């Protein structure tokens, strides 16, 4: 029983939580643990996917041949209100039931939900009807909305754009594998993204001489992260992989130093989270956590770029399931 008191805190790794405690979290069963974690963490992971798909462009005009830009973005995916809580359908679980909070609350906060006191959070009931039955309140949310007035998932990006030929520009996001932290508790990350922007207006009779720019854009990004959770258990590794694609039509109009632009199209993202290794509580269930989110839908954005000599500053807002604000700066030549 004592160990189970410690169990419930994925997302609460800010505590003294160890990898073994995470193993305890799965005491309700591997499948139940996966489902719970997936629901609890969804807005953070999904939001990251939306954010990572943003900020690819700040004009609809591709660079001229050998023209280039280097742009730094911060993409902030706002968590929608309905993603701050989740409900538990008991039929989806084999060894878990629910009980309301002391105040009657029945919805569970996600990690991006409000920071509630434990008395205001419903219970998760494990092993109901057996001697092992125990009820534990679900983890609370981080409460970013109350703390900062906004509730978003950030994803930075740095990219290079190079004009190649005939109104075509290649965009590249590249972070070679970087490793931080102490040996045995290292965090590694790497990212690769490739985009292509092409001036389609030149191929459309009747509009190619009109005073605006019109391009098509396609890009994909893949980011991989891993974390060694405990130096004493080197096989216990958490992995977080994100990939995304975006297909957009972009229109822009340059007015002196200001460029206004807008885009519309589709995006998809896939996020996978897994915990590899063997945990003391689950010796027969290696690699106990593995789940994935796949999202996609329409995406439309509007933005503006200010260009002062070679320096650019831009901001845009994208309407999608997780609306995303992008701000950035860079240098741009030709």
């Amino acid at each position: 029983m004592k160990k189970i008191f410690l169990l419930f805190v994925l997302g609460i790794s800010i505590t003294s939580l160890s990898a073994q405690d995470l193993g305890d979290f799965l005491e309700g069963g591997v499948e139940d643990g996966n489902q719970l974690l997936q629901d609890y963490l969804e807005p953070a992971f999904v939001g990251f996917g939306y954010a990572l798909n943003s900020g690819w462009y700040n004009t609809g005009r591709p660079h001229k041949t050998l023209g280039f830009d280097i742009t730094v973005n911060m993409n902030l995916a706002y968590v929608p209100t309905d993603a701050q809580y989740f409900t538990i359908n008991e039929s989806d679980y084999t060894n878990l039931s629910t009980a309301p909070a002391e105040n009657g609350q029945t919805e569970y906060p996600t990690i991006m939900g409000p920071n509630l006191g434990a008395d205001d959070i419903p219970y998760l009931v494990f092993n109901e009807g057996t001697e092992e039955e125990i009820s534990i309140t679900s983890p609370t949310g981080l409460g970013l909305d109350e703390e900062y007035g906004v509730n978003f998932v950030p994803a930075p990006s740095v990219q290079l754009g190079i004009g190649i030929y005939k109104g075509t520009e290649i965009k590249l996001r590249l972070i070679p594998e970087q490793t931080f932290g102490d040996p045995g508790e290292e965090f590694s990350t790497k990212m690769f993204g490739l985009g292509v922007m092409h001036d389609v207006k030149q191929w459309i009779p009747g509009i190619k001489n009109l005073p605006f720019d019109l391009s098509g854009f396609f890009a994909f990004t893949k980011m991989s992260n891993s974390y060694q959770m405990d130096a004493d258990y080197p096989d216990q590794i958490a992995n977080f992989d994100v990939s995304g694609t975006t297909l957009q039509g972009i229109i822009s109009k340059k007015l002196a130093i200001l460029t206004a632009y807008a885009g519309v199209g589709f995006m998809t993202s896939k996020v996978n989270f897994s915990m590899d290794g063997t945990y003391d509580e689950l010796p027969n269930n290696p690699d106990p956590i593995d789940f994935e989110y796949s999202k996609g839908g329409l995406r439309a954005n509007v933005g503006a770029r200010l260009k002062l000599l070679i320096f650019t500053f831009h901001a845009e807002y994208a309407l999608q399931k997780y609306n995303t604000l992008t701000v950035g700066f860079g240098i741009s030549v030709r």
Partner: protein
Amino acid sequence: MKQLFCIALLGAIFYSCGEEGIGFNARKEVGVESPMEVPSVPVNILDAPEQRQDISFNLEDVTSDLDFLDEIELNGISYEITGIDPNEELDIDELTVTISTSSGDIEFLSLTSLANTNGKIALSLSASELLQLENQIFSSTEKELNGEILLDLIDFPEEDLEFTITTYFDVTAKIRDL
């Protein structure tokens, strides 16, 4: 580094939680077994005398190793009687369980027949009685309740009688400020 796992994992910059911080409640029924033994005697001895047995409920396990324990609440008490064979069911004058507290004794179980309960039975304790028991348990360093079981049989059993009274304490441990 471990403490920053979540931050790194999500690629996000979660600086802190809100004012409520991080904590949780864990609620469990902690069962404490009290084995009872009544020896048989020659059948010609009637009017069995009362039997008294000291009883102790130690709930130290509930609180040990909980560094961030803020409070423990006692939500209720239930009991279960097991181990009585059908041919062992006896008539009794009374079976009572009394707990001593610094504010006085509480008789929380009183039965006039002895049989298996087929499950837990909740006791009807008032809020003030629960609070009195809660204070007695959790304010002491031993986390212990002491009392007495009184079993008054009408007749002695013809064979040794063994059964178990299991008392379940429904407690909520409140962990705060992790």
